[in-house]
C-alpha cells in the first residue's frame, strides 16, 4: 500500500512527500483503537450502560430475585419459587390494592385527559395575559407532591375540612362528608388530587400539540361547513392523537405506580382500603420487613404496565406508518 496519496505530489514532479513522523507510539495505539468503530461505540456507550446497570438493571434483577425468595429484614432467605406471588394473590388486602390501582389509574387518567384537553383548547385561544396564565397553570405540577398533598389532606381533614365547611354553608350538605375516613371517599379524594396535579402536564403537552396544527386547516374546515364541535372531532382530535397517546402512556405508567400521593394522603387507610400496589408493597416489604413478599407485590405491576405500553406504542407506530 505504498501508492502516492491522491492529490499529493508524485515522483514525476520530482518531489517527495514528507509525512509527519509520530513522536511516540503510545498515543498512536490509542488513536488506532478509537478509529475502530466497535471500540469507539463501546467506549461511548459505557457511561450510559454503567448508570442504567447500577440504577435500573441491578435493582430490577434484585427485585426479581427477592420476589422468588423468603428474604426478610435480617434474614438472607432462600429460593421459594412463586410462593410469594401465590400468597399475595390470596391476600384480600392485596386484591383490594390491585383493584384500587386500576380504578385509580383509569379515572385519574380519564379526568386528566378530558380536563387537560379542555384547558388546552381554551389556552390555545388568544386572550390578554395568555403567557402568564399558561405559565401559572403549571404550578400544581411544580410544587412537590408531598407538599401539595399535605395541603389537600388539610382540606379533607375530618374536623377542620374547609370543603365541608363550604358545602355546609352553601346548604349542599347537612352532615360532614367522611372524605378520608371512608374507603370509597378516600379513593375518590386521591383521584381528585392526582387529577389536580397531573392535569397541567396534559394541558401543556396537548397545547404544544395543538400549536403544531396549521391554523389554515381550521379555516379550511370552517369553509367546508364544519362547526366547532365537528372541527374538533374530524380535524383537531385526529391530528392530536399521536401526542395524546404519548401523554396517556406516560400518565398511565406514573399513575399506576403512584406512591407519594396515597402515602401522604391516606397512608393506605382507613383499614387498608385505599392502598395501591406501590404503597402496599412498601408496607409489606419495608414497613413490615418482608422483603420477598413486598417485591412480589410490586412486581405485579410489571406485566400490566408492559401490556399497556406495548398496546399503545403499537397503535402509535401504526398511525405513523399509515
Amino acid at each position, binding site marked *: 500500500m505504498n501508492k502516492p496519496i491522491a492529490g499529493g505530489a508524485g515522483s514525476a514532479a520530482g518531489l517527495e512527500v514528507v509525512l509527519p513522523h509520530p513522536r511516540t507510539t503510545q498515543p498512536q495505539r490509542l488513536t488506532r483503537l478509537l478509529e475502530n468503530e466497535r471500540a469507539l461505540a463501546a467506549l461511548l456507550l459505557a457511561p450510559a450502560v454503567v448508570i442504567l446497570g447500577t440504577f435500573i438493571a441491578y435493582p430490577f434483577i434484585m427485585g426479581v430475585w427477592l420476589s422468588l425468595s423468603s428474604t426478610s429484614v435480617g434474614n438472607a432467605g432462600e429460593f421459594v419459587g412463586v410462593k410469594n406471588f401465590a400468597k399475595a394473590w390470596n391476600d384480600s388486602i392485596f386484591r383490594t390494592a390491585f383493584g384500587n390501582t386500576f380504578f385509580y389509574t383509569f379515572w385519574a387518567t380519564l379526568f386528566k385527559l378530558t380536563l387537560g384537553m379542555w384547558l388546552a383548547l381554551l389556552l390555545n385561544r388568544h386572550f390578554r395575559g395568555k403567557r402568564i396564565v399558561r405559565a401559572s397553570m403549571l404550578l400544581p405540577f411544580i410544587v412537590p407532591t408531598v407538599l401539595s398533598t399535605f395541603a389537600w389532606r388539610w382540606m379533607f381533614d375530618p374536623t377542620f375540612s374547609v370543603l365541608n365547611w363550604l358545602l355546609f354553608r352553601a346548604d349542599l350538605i347537612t352532615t360532614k362528608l367522611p372524605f378520608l375516613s371512608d374507603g370509597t371517599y378516600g379513593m375518590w379524594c386521591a383521584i381528585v388530587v392526582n387529577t389536580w396535579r397531573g392535569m397541567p402536564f396534559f394541558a401543556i403537552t396537548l397545547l404544544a400539540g395543538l400549536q403544531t396544527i*396549521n391554523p*389554515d*386547516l381550521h*379555516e*379550511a*374546515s*370552517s*369553509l*367546508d*361547513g*364544519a*362547526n366547532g364541535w*365537528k372541527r374538533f372531532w*374530524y*380535524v383537531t382530535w*385526529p*391530528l392530536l392523537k399521536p401526542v395524546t397517546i404519548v401523554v396517556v402512556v406516560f400518565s398511565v405508567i406514573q399513575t399506576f405506580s403512584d406512591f407519594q400521593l396515597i402515602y401522604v394522603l391516606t397512608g393506605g387507610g382507613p383499614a387498608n382500603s385505599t392502598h395501591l400496589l406501590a404503597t402496599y408493597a412498601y408496607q409489606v416489604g419495608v414497613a413490615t420487613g418482608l422483603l420477598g413478599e413486598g417485591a412480589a407485590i410490586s412486581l405485579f405491576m410489571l406485566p400490566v404496565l408492559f401490556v399497556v405500553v406495548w398496546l399503545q406504542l403499537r397503535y402509535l407506530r401504526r398511525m405513523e406508518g*399509515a
Partner: protein
Amino acid sequence: MAQVMMKDLNKKYDEVHAVKDVNLHIRDKEFIVLVGPSGCGKSTTLRMVAGLEEITAGEITIGDRVVNDLPPKDRDIAMVFQNYALYPHMTVYDNMAFGLKMRKFPKVEIQKRVQDAAEILGIQELLKRKPRQLSGGQRQRVAVGRAIVRHPQVFLFDEPLSNLDAKLRVQMRVELKRLHERLETTAIYVTHDQVEAMTLGDRVVVMKDGWIQQVGEPLELYGKPANKFVAGFIGSPAMNFVDVKVADANGALWAETQGLRVKVPPIHTSRLVPYKGQQVTLGVRPEDLQLASGSDPSEYVFDAVVDVVEPLGSEILLDLRAGNSTIVARVEPTVRLKVHEKTRLALTPDRAHFFDLKTELAI
C-alpha cells in the same frame, strides 16, 4: 354562479388600516385577479369575502345576499389556500368529500362528485393516498378538487401557485385557466406575481397600501397604466422611469434631462402644456426602445452607453446609461453590442408615458 360586490370595504386592525374603501363589482363568471406587493391588502380582502376576517366597515354581497354576518360555511364559496391546507390524516378522497359530508350530501352523490372532479383534474389514481404521499403539484390539484366538488358560487384562490416550482407554476396556471373556462364559476384570485395576474385574469385589480390603484383588463393595465405604481408593477422588466423637465423650443415641447433630450410625442403635447418648465416623469417600456437606424426621426433618438448585456435567447436585455439615467431596453437577439460600447436608442413616440411628479398619476 354569482356576482360579487364590495362596497366601501374597510379593514382595520389595531394599528393598521389594511384595506381602504375598496369598491369592486365582480361580474358573474368573471375571473378576477387581485395583485400587488405583500401588505397591499389583497389577501385581507379575499379573506373578508371568505368570512375568515371580520369586516370593519362596508358591505360584501355574493349573488344577491349581503354576507357580512354570514359564517364562512354559509357563504357558498370555496377557497384554495397557499399551502393547500389539506387534512393530513385523510385520504385524497376524504379530503375532497369532507365538505360534502359536512353538508350531509347522500353518499352516492358525494362519490359521483368526487369522481367527476378527480377526472377533470386527472387525479383518479391518487384518491386512496394521503396528502404527504403526493407531490406539490398533486396536492395543488387535490386542493382545487376539494373546492370544485362543492359547486360553489365563487372560487377564492389565495396565492395557490406560489409554493410550486417555476415550471409547474406555468403548467398549473394554464390548467387553472382551462378549468375556469370549463366550469364558468366566478373566481377571485390573489397573487403577488404580475405574470400570473396578466395571464389568468379577465380583469386585474392592482392594489397598494390597502388602496385599489387600477382595475382593468390585462392589456389595458399594460397599455394605459393609471399611475406610476401600476406602470412599474405590471410588466417585466419594469418600465423605465426618467425624471425630465418639460421645455419649450422651436415651437414644440421637449422632455429633457442631462444627456437625454427627446421631443414630447404629439399625442401628449396638449396634456403636457400646463407642465411647461416643470419636472415630470417619463416612462418607457423596455420593448418600446430600439437601436436607432437612419430612418428613425432624430427627435426621438438619444445616445447611450451599454452597461450590461443580458442575452435571454429570444431577446436581449440591454442595461444602458443615458446621461445620469439607467435604462433597460429589450432588443432583437441578433444585436451584437459589447459592454461600454456607445449606441443610439430610438423610442416609439406614441408608447411613451408621462406621470405627474407629485401625484404620480398618468398625465
